[in-house]
C-alpha cells in the first residue's frame, strides 16, 4: 500500500489521470437511472398503446414488431423467491421484451429479441439479446419444410422453454420448476448456434424435428449458482452443446407430443488455488423429456416427464457427483368462462431418483434432505381483460426446496423451511 502510495504521489501525470477517471466515473454514476425509473418508463410507453388494443406493428409489410411486459408480486411463508418475498412480499420481478422480425425475401427472415429481466438478486436489471438469428428456408412444399437457423437461437426444450419469459404463453406465473427450473434458466434460454429444422405434414398430423449445436449462454453468476450452488471466485463457461426435439401433433392440435434431449457441457475455470476455490471441473447435463398435451375447447391436459443425468467431475470431493434426477408434472387448464382460466398442477422433482427423500445425499454432501426434492401443488386463476392484457394469480403449497431460486436470495440452505407456501400475482401486457 505504501509503495503504491509513494509511486502515485511521485507521478503527477498518473494522479491526474486517476483523478480524471474518477470524474468520469462520477459523471456516469449520475447518469445511471434507478431501475424503477426504467421500469416505470417502459410501463408508460407500453401503457400508451393499450388504448389502441392489441395490434402488432406492421411497419412495412415485411417487418413485424411485438413486445411484452410483466410485473409480478411474490409472497412466501418462508424461503425467498425473487427478492425478499417472505417479508411482506416482493415486487422484484419484471420481465419485458421487444421482438422484431424482418422478411426481405420469402426464403430469408431475420428475427431478434431484447429481454429485460429483474428477478431477485440473480437477475438485476439485465438487458440481454435473447435471440438474434437468420432463418433460411431450404425447401418448402405443401407437405415438407426444411430450413436452418443461425445465430443466437432459442433452445427447443419441452413445451414451454422457448417462450418461458412471456406470461401469455405459459400456463402459470411460475413454470413447473421440476422441468423449467429458473435456477438453470440461463443455460436453457438460448445458444449461439446452428439449427436445422424439418417438418412433414399430412392428413394425420404434423411431424417436426429440430436439431442444434452451439454454445449456450452460460457465463453468468446464475449458471454458477445453478450448477455449483454458490458464487465461487472463478467463472463458468459453456462448451459445445447439443439439443434435439422431435414433435408430433394431430391436425388441429388436439394431441401434441414431443421428445427432447440435450447434452449441455459447462466448465469451471478457477481463479484461486484450493481451499479458496474449486478445481477446474466439468458438468455434463443430459436430460430426456417426454411431453404430451390434450386440447379441447374448455380443457387442456398437459404432462411432462424428464430424467436428467448430471455428471460433475474435477471440481473436487464434495462437488463431484454423478446422479440421475427425475421430474414430472400433471396439469389441467380449464377455460370455464370466456377469458377466464383455472389451472391445477402437481409438480414433482427429485435431484436423485435413487434417493427420493434426500437422506442419503444429506449424509454424503451435507445439505439438508429437503433440498434434494420438491413437490408442488399449484392452483391458479387468470383473466384476459382483452387479447393484450392479462392478470394472473396462483397459490403453491410446496414440500421441499430442490428448486429454490435464486440461491443468492437464500444464502444458507440450513435456513430453508421444508414446507412452505407461495402466492404470486402478475399483470402482463403484450402487443
Amino acid at each position, binding site marked *: 500500500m505504501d509503495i503504491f502510495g509513494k509511486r502515485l504521489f511521485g507521478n503527477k501525470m498518473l494522479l491526474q489521470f486517476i483523478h480524471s477517471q474518477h470524474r468520469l466515473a462520477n459523471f456516469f454514476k449520475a447518469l445511471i437511472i434507478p431501475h424503477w425509473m426504467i421500469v416505470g418508463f417502459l410501463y408508460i410507453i407500453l401503457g400508451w398503446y393499450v388504448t389502441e388494443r*392489441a*395490434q*402488432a406493428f*406492421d411497419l412495412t*409489410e415485411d417487418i*413485424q414488431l*411485438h413486445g*411484452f411486459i410483466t410485473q409480478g408480486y411474490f409472497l412466501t411463508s418462508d424461503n425467498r423467491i425473487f427478492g425478499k418475498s417472505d417479508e411482506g412480499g416482493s415486487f422484484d420481478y419484471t420481465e419485458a*421484451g421487444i*421482438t422484431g*422480425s424482418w*422478411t426481405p425475401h*420469402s426464403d430469408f*427472415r431475420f*428475427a*431478434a*429479441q431484447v429481454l429485460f429481466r429483474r428477478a431477485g438478486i440473480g437477475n438485476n436489471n439485465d438487458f440481454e439479446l435473447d*435471440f*438474434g*438469428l437468420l*432463418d433460411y*428456408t431450404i425447401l*418448402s*412444399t*405443401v407437405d415438407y*419444410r426444411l430450413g436452418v*437457423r443461425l445465430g443466437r*437461437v*432459442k433452445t427447443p426444450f419441452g413445451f414451454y422453454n*422457448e*417462450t418461458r*419469459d*412471456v406470461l*401469455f*404463453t405459459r400456463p402459470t406465473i411460475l413454470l413447473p420448476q421440476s422441468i423449467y427450473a429458473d435456477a438453470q434458466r440461463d443455460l436453457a434460454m438460448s445458444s449461439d448456434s446452428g439449427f436445422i*429444422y424439418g*417438418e412433414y*405434414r*399430412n*392428413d394425420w398430423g*404434423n411431424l417436426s424435428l429440430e436439431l442444434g449445436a452451439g454454445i449456450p449462454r452460460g457465463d453468468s453468476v446464475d449458471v454458477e449458482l445453478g450448477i455449483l450452488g454458490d458464487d465461487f471466485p472463478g467463472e463458468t463457461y459453456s462448451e459445445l452443446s447439443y439439443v434435439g426435439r422431435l414433435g408430433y401433433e394431430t*391436425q*388441429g*392440435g388436439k394431441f401434441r407430443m414431443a421428445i427432447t434431449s440435450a447434452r449441455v457441457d459447462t466448465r469451471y475455470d478457477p481463479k484461486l488455488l484450493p481451499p479458496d476455490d474449486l478445481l477446474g471441473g466439468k458438468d455434463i447435463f443430459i436430460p430426456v423429456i417426454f411431453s404430451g398435451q390434450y*386440447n*379441447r*375447447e374448455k380443457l387442456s391436459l398437459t404432462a411432462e416427464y424428464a430424467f436428467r443425468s448430471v455428471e460433475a467431475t474435477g471440481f473436487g470431493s464434495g462437488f463431484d457427483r454423478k446422479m440421475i434426477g427425475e421430474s414430472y408434472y400433471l396439469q389441467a387448464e380449464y*377455460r370455464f368462462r370466456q377469458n377466464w382460466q383455472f389451472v391445477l398442477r402437481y409438480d414433482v422433482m427429485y435431484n436423485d431418483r435413487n434417493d427420493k427423500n434426500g437422506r442419503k445425499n444429506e449424509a454424503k454432501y451435507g445439505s439438508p434432505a429437503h433440498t434434494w426434492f420438491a413437490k408442488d401443488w399449484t392452483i391458479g386463476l387468470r383473466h384476459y381483460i382483452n*387479447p393484450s392484457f392479462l392478470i394472473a394469480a396462483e397459490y403453491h403449497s410446496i414440500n421441499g426446496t430442490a428448486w429454490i431460486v435464486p440461491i443468492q436470495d437464500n444464502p444458507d440452505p440450513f435456513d430453508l423451511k421444508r414446507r412452505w407456501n407461495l402466492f404470486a400475482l402478475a399483470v402482463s401486457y403484450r402487443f
Partner: protein
Amino acid sequence: MLIICIMSGISSADNLPVVVVNPTVDPKSFLSRSAFSAIFGMRLRKWEDGSQIKVFVLADDSPLHVNFSKNILRVFPYQLRLAWDRLVFSGTGEEPTKLKSEQQMREMVGSTPGAIGYLSRSMIDETVKAINF
C-alpha cells in the same frame, strides 16, 4: 381432400366463413385442410410458385374468426393464438396480419398479391377469389 365444390343448396354452409385469396393466387395442390391449417398456423409460408403467402385474420375474439377457426380449420382460437405467440416470441415465425373488419379484409386480400383470408359468404365479390374445399 382435393375437392372444390359449389356449396349452394346446403343451407348450413351459408353461415360458414369462406377462405378467400387474391385473384392472382393459384392454390393448385394447396386445397386441403392440412394445407390451410399449416397456412393459418403460419407454418406454410410459400405458394407453389414460390411467392410469399400473406395471411390476414380478424381479431381473436371476433365472431367470424371464432367461426372460421372452429368450423373451417377445426382448431380452437386459443390454440391458434398460442401457436402464433410461440412462433413470434421464439423467433421462429410470425403471426398473421390482423385486420379490423370484413370490409378491410376484402380490400386487403383483393389488393395484396399472395394474400389469403376469410369472409362471410355474403361479403364475397369479384375482387377476391373464393375457395371451397
